[in-house]
């Protein structure tokens, strides 16, 4: 045990003293946030560039009130100039485009004959915006034609929200469901990334010991199994440390930025949403829906999610990194690893795909249930399911299967490992690996 502790300590220190670990840990959150800000500011800058749009309304249906200037778009009425003249003018001048509303017999025909001319193809948001303006106006006119009071229509508009409960009385809603998907997806994805990054790091460390030939000295002092275990635990600890540091840094950055820069998060979102969506959002906020989401977030089984994340992280990491260690032991250099890497990577990637494809639609469907039991995909898929509430016995089966498999895989990997670390030269085949497993002692 004392030796195992020594090995863990060395592997942990070797990992965290590594320059790339320090860079990854401290720079990547800054980089991520930095890029986020950059994109935000650039898109804001982009919007500040005022677009001049002119319209020619042969019907004289629209007034300036319908084309209200916004921060980024200014409208002008060029109807008097006629469409041909306006087109020429727009093409020559500093205009974004022309909206042409021809004279038609009925509103229905008109609705599909409105045209937009521009030098470059217009952005989707501009066209979308114009379409919604036109549609709103035409609907209004149609209502008038039909003799319906639009004020009454407005008053009759009722938005419905079905409140969802499960039988243990937990309330949920679409927003909260989205939240659950988000939490599960982030947890599952993070787990995959960590297993990949730290699994290959275990593998590299094994190869390093092999190529530097220190391995024989170490295994004359400790059992190969202890060394392998120490390596895996040491790297897992470094991974958890990095994870916590990232969490703290991101928390600090979001706190500091909201104070210092005063960035209003609703502004960030509003810039991407249409006015109607904003309206519903505002309504939702007015109804206290936003606060509810935040409340709901804290009412999610966060402690359970956290504990399960740690469990599945460790279980999945041990399972995979023992395989990575066996691969590292089997080869002489990193370039030889590819052949063995694919079968390890596949179930990981499969887990993420299955998670995103099925859990989101049907968290308790047969496919997500099965994949949350299979030990190679369960860490990812189960983590994605957990926020939706998984019966305890399913979690228990999944955890037991993972534990059992992980013990078995570590045992098998250790067999390959103890033979492989002392083998140099020929690149082994799968048949060789099978033979190594059967070697005694």
């Amino acid at each position, binding site marked *: 045990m004392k030796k195992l502790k*020594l*090995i863990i300590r060395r592997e942990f220190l070797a990992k965290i003293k590594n320059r790339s670990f320090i860079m990854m840990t401290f720079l990547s959150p800054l980089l991520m946030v930095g890029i986020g800000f950059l994109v935000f500011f650039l898109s804001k800058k982009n919007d500040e560039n005022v677009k001049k749009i002119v319209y020619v309304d042969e019907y004289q249906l629209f007034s300036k009130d319908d084309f209200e200037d916004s921060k980024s778009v200014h409208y002008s009425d060029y109807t008097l100039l006629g469409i041909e003249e306006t087109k020429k003018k727009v093409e020559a001048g500093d205009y974004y485009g022309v909206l042409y509303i021809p004279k038609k017999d009925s509103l229905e025909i008109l609705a599909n004959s409105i045209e937009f001319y521009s030098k470059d193809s217009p952005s989707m948001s501009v066209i979308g915006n114009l379409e919604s303006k036109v549609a709103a106006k035409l609907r209004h006119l149609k209502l008038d034609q039909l003799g319906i009071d639009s004020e009454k229509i407005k008053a009759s508009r009722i938005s419905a929200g079905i409140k969802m409960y499960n039988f243990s009385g937990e309330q949920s809603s679409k927003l909260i469901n989205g939240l659950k998907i988000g939490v599960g997806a982030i947890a599952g994805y993070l787990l995959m990334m960590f297993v990949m990054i730290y699994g290959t790091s275990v593998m590299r460390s094994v190869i390093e010991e092999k190529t*530097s030939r220190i391995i*024989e*000295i*170490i295994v*004359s002092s400790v059992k190969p199994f202890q060394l392998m275990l120490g390596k895996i635990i040491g790297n897992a600890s470094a991974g958890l440390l990095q994870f916590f540091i990232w969490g703290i840094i991101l928390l600090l950055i979001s706190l500091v930025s909201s104070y210092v820069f005063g960035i209003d998060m609703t502004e960030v979102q509003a810039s991407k949403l249409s006015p109607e969506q904003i309206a519903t959002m505002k309504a939702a906020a007015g109804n206290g829906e936003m606060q509810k989401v935040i409340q709901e977030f804290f009412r999610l089984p966060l402690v359970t999610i956290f504990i399960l994340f740690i469990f599945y992280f460790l279980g999945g990491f041990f399972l995979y990194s023992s395989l990575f260690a066996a691969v590292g032991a089997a080869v002489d250099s990193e370039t030889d690893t590819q052949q063995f890497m694919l079968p390890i990577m596949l179930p990981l990637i499969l887990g993420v795909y299955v998670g995103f494809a099925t859990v989101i639609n049907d968290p308790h469907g047969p496919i997500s249930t099965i994949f949350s039991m299979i030990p190679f995909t369960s860490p990812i898929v189960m983590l994605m399911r957990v926020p939706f509430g998984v019966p305890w016995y399913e979690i228990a089966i999944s955890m037991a299967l993972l534990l059992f498999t992980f013990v078995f895989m570590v045992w098998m990997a250790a067999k390959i490992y103890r033979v492989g670390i002392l083998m140099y030269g020929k690149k082994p085949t799968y048949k060789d690996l099978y033979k190594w497993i059967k070697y*005694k002692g």
Partner: protein
Amino acid sequence: MSNLLEINNVTKKYGEFTALNNVTLNIPKGSVFGLLGPNGAGKTSLIRIINQITLPDSGTILLDGESLESSHIEQIGYLPEERGLYKSMKVGEQALYLAQLKGLSKTEAKKRLKYWFDKFEIGAWWDKKIEELSKGMAQKVQFIVTVLHQPKLLIFDEPFSGFDPINAQLIAKEILQLRDEGATIIFSTHRMESVEEMCDYIALINKSNKIVDGKLDDIKRQYRSNTFQIGLKTSNSKEIETVLNQQFEVSPTDYRMLNEGFTANVKIPENESPNGLISLLMKHGELQHFLELVPSANDIFIQAVHKNS
């Protein structure tokens, strides 16, 4: 108990390949034991079994009378043929780590490291990384790490490869001193001449079988051929050659005499004293060189392989 290590009927197979075939060896306490044989003979397999890196398929091993178990690792020091240390780790840190893996406490390891670093005058390397050291420098660190925990049994695989002659001599001196202090040493090498002078006992291994073992002097006596190399200052080489040929087996030699004269290897019959040959030679000239050709480990190995096959 006069044997530190007793290896009884050890067999080790890797699949179809037999690395060790029923090998039995006794290694006396306080001796320098040469485990000699060509590459691929099974030396490293045997050493790995002693170090418990691998287990034998059958056979037993006793260290100091006790069946080998994991706690014995701390009583063995092993310098493998392929030397290596963590390249990006600092010398001191690394030595401390390896010493602690052998069961030393940190403070004790520090104390002993200071002693050895002072002795080899390498204290200044403590905070250097291994990759900054030359190969010879790294070997010194490796030697210290091997002996630091004062093991009862020291195993050196190809002990002097990689050392320049001066450092090889320094290391050889240290090893003999450790022997004098009570350690038992095993040298394993295919370059038999490099360790022969230091060995008290040897075992010759060829193709996974032990072919000869025992006290070096006994083996040499057993394999001696009563052949003497002679150098005689004389003006009449022809005459002495004829005379010798009548009584003994004479063969040419590669000895170079400074004076003009006659040189040869002369084999005298068993149980006959060389004095007869000496008096005969003295009659024909001035005897300048007379040396028994004691078989080297290499010669013995070649003879033993022939005899066995």
